[in-house]
């Protein structure tokens, strides 16, 4: 909103702007208008206001230059480091008033003085630089800022200064003074601008009045302490202090920098910024307790110039003596660094291919009164004189230069870096007050600006100090196949395999095939001496059986310390490359496209059709030990069932199958079969299938083979609501014929028990596309069938008895029961179950509610029962002539039936027995065996049930 000034000038108050760079240029652009208005109100020229503006912004311009240079330094620009340092030195030299500015700022903030003129600047006094709460509390909003400068932008400024001086505390003090002076002097602009942003021209008025009242000459008005007019600004039109990009330092036009004599701010926002800077400055200059006082020590090194000759009087192997001849070897001693006893000199030589220190104490030093035991990788008591040193060769000694190094120098170097890193951590913590933590070059958590010296320095090789000693060392010998490598690896016939090694201290290397199996070495040989490089390719493995390939590496040298050998093993196996191709969801009959309608709540089996990539491996095309699991996603509530495991035969747990190359649907165990709990068979579901094999085709003597697991999800299976029917059974008692014509069915009681009848009818329902809502006994009837009569005992005690032969009697029985059924107005289907053997007959009405058939324990018995039940459900015969000449009469001819002429080309699955129905199968309504509901039959019955 615009605020009208008394002078009628209504400059817009700048809107708050997010920091996009070091300072908010758009906010600053509005300030000249405010100054113009305030000066006009006082009868002063706009040009004077412009001069004041130029003067107030001089520090900001210099800080912006430093910020830019610091950014380049932190990005790794070495030239920028030279440039910034030269400019800071130039400013420090040109403006002596900067000297001590950092300390003054810290002191002022710490003492709580807010204003040299005695005015009130709230809060500044309580912001103590070392207060932990201060840093974190203020930091929460420090980065956002309320001033012109981005507070967080000051972090790289200070970091850049520290980096420009190589983190040399002695050197960076003057640089920090310059930045602190510039930043503090810039506070006058911050205060003025904040007043303008807050109150418009009235705010500028108050700032000018405050300056006048405190004797601040900034605005060029009478202070009562001197004459009026502008202060001496040097040459205000001379522009910015020159920024020298050549690294020679600032030139200068004589522009006076206000930081020479900056005044404490009156603005709360600026107070917070300065307090945070003070905290950072305090940490940089005084805070880090571990800051090393000295420059970073030189990186430790090793030397060998004083070695003239090395001899091995007894041999070149571990434990034998090496004598170093030379001059100026001095006397080894122990010094204390950081509380630890460290030797000042030690021998360095190659052990295991690495420069390794041998801490040596001569007998005299060993008994030194200090009693220090020197820690180190190798400690050995030996002779050490100024011209001769005797060293016992350590285990794993290898060829290379021998020399000397100073463990104490390394300790000192590392102590320095440790202290410096600790200090940097303090600085980071302090910088949080300004915003994001200071990020120094290569500075991460934990703080590690300076890397300690690790290991032992290696001596230079001279004409005299390079020795040959120790046995050959095989650092590695690996079998490789693609990205896989190791001492023992598992390979597929398609893998390109090879060997790779790393050997030191060896004169010769040989590679040998130990096993009779496995690809030959390049050139078709079993042994390869001194092959070029450090690897050989063995080509594509191409094996067709499970077997182990063994290769050996032999390294030798002339040092007489023995040879080195290593072996690797390729476990040649076969990746099974399992796939999940399809599933079949069946109640008993299903097509491969799952087009047969599924019925909710019916017993269901999912057959999983899997594939693999094994062909003629170990003489077979199969993958044994394939198992899996399956779970059901109930789409209606998004919940998953627990995992279900296969129901295939066999002793494995969970059951596993031998997966053939081509799945034969008629083979029960060519597929993994899962029984689905009927409560999961409702509405729309998905199936997630996982199949796996463990350690397939492991070579003899190992258990290492390929393990694989694949999974796949199958969506869109719908279980339709069933059109249930109720079944009532009437078990018949038979009186067997003594001549064996009329016997009791094996495995069935006489009369059949209720459980036998229920199980029989439950299995009968496999062929019918609905559930039995109920299967119950027809109570209070007792039926007896003899060779020559039938008897029906009725509810209420009555009896119907007819003398008639059993074959006619069976028909009369059905008619009588049908009649009795009609009287009771019962819509259930009555099944009259006769336990006869042989029992190849049954009868039903088409359609009807009653049927009679024999009861047995076989699938064919159940299919015959389903045949009669299907008659009740309006299904007619198919007059297909069977192999034994039987042909059902009535109904459709095979041609009229259409679908495969009465044959079932899809493979039924006996859900009750977990068994595929193999061989030629015929439709349920033929007389042929075995018979099963075909997909068309299933749909016909479904249509009839739906239309009842």
């Amino acid at each position: 909103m615009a605020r009208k000034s008394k002078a009628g000038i209504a400059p817009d108050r700048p809107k708050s702007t997010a920091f996009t760079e070091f300072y908010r240029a758009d906010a600053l652009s509005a300030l000249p208008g405010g100054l113009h208005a305030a000066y006009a109100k006082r009868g002063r020229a706009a040009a004077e206001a412009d001069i004041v503006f130029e003067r107030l912004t001089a520090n900001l311009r210099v800080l912006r230059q430093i910020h830019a240079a610091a950014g380049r330094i932190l990005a790794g620009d070495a030239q920028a480091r030279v440039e910034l340092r030269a400019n800071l030195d130039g400013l420090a030299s040109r403006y002596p008033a900067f000297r001590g500015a950092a300390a003054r700022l810290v002191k002022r903030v710490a003492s709580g003085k807010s204003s040299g003129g005695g005015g009130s600047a709230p809060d500044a006094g309580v912001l103590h630089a070392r207060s932990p709460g201060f840093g974190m509390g203020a930091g929460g909003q420090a980065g956002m800022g309320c001033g012109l400068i981005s507070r967080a932008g000051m972090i790289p400024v200070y970091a850049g200064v520290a980096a420009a001086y190589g983190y040399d505390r002695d050197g960076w003090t003057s640089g920090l003074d310059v930045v602190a002076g510039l930043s503090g002097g810039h506070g006058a602009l911050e205060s003025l601008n904040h007043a303008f942003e807050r109150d418009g021209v009235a705010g500028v008025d108050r700032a000018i009045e405050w300056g006048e009242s405190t004797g601040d000459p900034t605005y060029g008005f009478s202070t009562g302490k001197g004459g009026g007019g502008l202060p001496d600004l040097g040459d205000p039109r001379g522009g910015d202090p020159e920024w020298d990009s050549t690294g020679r330092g600032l030139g200068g036009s004589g522009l006076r920098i206000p930081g020479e004599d900056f005044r404490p701010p009156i603005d709360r926002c600026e107070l917070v910024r300065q307090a945070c800077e003070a905290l950072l400055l305090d940490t940089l200059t005084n805070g880090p307790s571990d800051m090393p006082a000295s420059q970073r020590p030189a990186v430790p090194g090793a030397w060998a110039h004083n070695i003239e000759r090395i001899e091995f009087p007894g041999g070149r192997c571990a434990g034998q003596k090496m004598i170093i001849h030379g001059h100026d070897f001095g006397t080894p001693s122990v010094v204390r660094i950081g509380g630890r006893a460290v030797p000042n000199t030690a021998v360095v030589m190659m052990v295991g291919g690495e420069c390794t220190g041998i801490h040596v104490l001569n007998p005299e030093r060993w008994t030194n009164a200090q009693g220090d035991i020197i820690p180190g990788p190798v400690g050995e008591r030996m002779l050490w004189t100024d011209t001769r040193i005797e060293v016992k060769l350590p285990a794993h000694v290898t060829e290379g230069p021998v020399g000397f190094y100073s463990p104490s120098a390394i300790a000192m170097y590392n102590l320095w870096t440790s202290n410096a890193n600790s200090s940097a951590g303090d600085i980071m913590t302090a910088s949080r007050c300004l915003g994001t933590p200071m990020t120094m070059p290569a500075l991460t958590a934990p703080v590690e600006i300076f890397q300690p010296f690790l290991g032992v320095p290696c001596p230079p090789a001279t004409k005299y100090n390079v020795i040959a000693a120790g046995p050959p060392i095989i650092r590695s010998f690996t079998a490789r196949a693609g990205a896989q490598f190791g001492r023992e690896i598992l390979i597929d016939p398609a893998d390109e395999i090879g060997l790779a090694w790393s050997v030191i201290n060896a004169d010769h290397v040989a590679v040998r095939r130990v096993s009779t199996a496995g690809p030959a070495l390049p050139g078709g040989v079993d042994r390869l001496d001194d092959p070029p490089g450090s690897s050989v390719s063995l080509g594509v493995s191409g094996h067709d059986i499970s077997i182990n390939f063994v290769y050996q590496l032999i390294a030798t040298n002339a040092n007489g310390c023995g040879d080195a050998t290593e072996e690797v093993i390729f476990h040649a196996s076969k990746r099974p490359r399992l796939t999940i191709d399809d599933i079949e969801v069946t109640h008993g009959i299903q097509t491969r496209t799952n087009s047969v309608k599924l019925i909710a709540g019916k017993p269901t089996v999912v057959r999983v059709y899997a594939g693999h990539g094994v062909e003629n491996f170990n003489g077979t095309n199969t993958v044994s030990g394939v198992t899996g699991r399956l779970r059901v996603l109930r789409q209606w509530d998004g919940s998953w069932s627990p995992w279900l495991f296969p129901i295939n035969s066999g002793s494995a747990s969970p059951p596993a199958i031998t997966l053939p190359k081509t799945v034969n649907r008629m083979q029960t165990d060519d597929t993994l079969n899962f029984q689905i709990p009927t409560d999961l068979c409702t509405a729309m579901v998905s199936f997630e299938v996982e199949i796996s094999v463990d350690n397939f085709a492991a070579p003899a003597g190992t258990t290492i083979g390929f393990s694989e697991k694949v999974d796949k999800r199958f969506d869109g299976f719908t279980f339709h609501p069933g059109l249930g029917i109720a079944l009532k059974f009437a078990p018949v008692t038979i009186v067997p014929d003594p001549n064996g014509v009329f016997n009791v069915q094996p495995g069935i009681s006489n009369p059949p028990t209720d459980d036998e009848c229920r199980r029989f009818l439950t299995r009968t329902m496999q062929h019918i596309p609905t559930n039995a809502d109920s299967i119950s006994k027809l109570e209070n009837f007792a039926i007896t069938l003899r060779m020559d009569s039938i008897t029906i005992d009725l509810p209420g005690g009555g009896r119907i008895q007819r003398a008639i032969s059993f074959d006619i009697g069976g028909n009369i029985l059905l008619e009588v029961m049908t009649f009795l059924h009609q009287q009771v107005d019962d819509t259930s289907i009555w099944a009259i179950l006769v336990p006869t053997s042989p029992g190849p007959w049954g009868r039903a009405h088409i359609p009807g509610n009653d049927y009679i058939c024999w009861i047995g324990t076989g699938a064919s018995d159940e299919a015959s029962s389903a045949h009669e039940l299907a008659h009740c459900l309006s299904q007619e015969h198919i007059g297909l002539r069977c192999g034994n000449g039987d042909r059902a009469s009535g109904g459709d001819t095979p041609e009229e039936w259409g679908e495969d002429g009465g044959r079932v080309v899809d493979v039924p699955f006996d859900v009750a027995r977990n068994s595929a129905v193999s061989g030629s199968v015929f439709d349920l309504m033929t007389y042929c065996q075995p018979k099963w509901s075909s997909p068309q039959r299933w749909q016909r019955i479904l249509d009839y049930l739906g239309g009842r």
Partner: protein
Amino acid sequence: MIGRDLLIAGKTTEIETIVFGGFLLADLKFEPVQLYSTHSADIAPPTGNGEYFAELRDGTDRALQREPIAAERPLVCGGKAPNFWKLDGSIAWREGAVKLLLMKKDIAIRAFQVGPPPELSLQWSAKAVKRSEKHELRMRYSRQSADAYVQLFLEVTATKYLTLALGEPKPAYVIDFSSLPAGQEFRLVAAYTSGLRTVLQRTGRFSIAEKAKSAKSKSSRRATPAG
């Protein structure tokens, strides 16, 4: 056996149609399954195959009425084709008829004497019975013919009947209610067919109550040996 239509209509003695059905064996022996008369004309005359007929004849053996009989080979699954026929038919009653002949072409297969309308009365006084009880229904009937039979029903509802007995008439029937449903408004219905003529009689209504639970448990406890 008595057709449901007759039961539901509730009439007693009028005869308009004789209904018959059964199996004709290879030796031309007829085994009846249904044989009764009914007032109902709802039974459609069967379509015969031209081979079997039914005839009503008078005392001079003159044919009063002739109707074709439906004959079919029963569809017996799985076995050999049956060597018997299932015959079903009905024939309208004619005054003066004294016998019904079932004929294969011109050969009389079976003759049934047609007698005068039979008489039947029931004696039943119970208004309420329990399922634990047995009660006797006494029956008085006129002299029976050779093929006479009684079919005794429990009328559960107007459309639901349970057959309690089927066979030669007896002066008394002991009815065991333990296997019958409990409820109200039951009646016993007896259909007496003699000389191909059927008469129906009903008892008064009565209820069947569940056996008292306390009595059952008490009795059960007494039956348990002590100790």
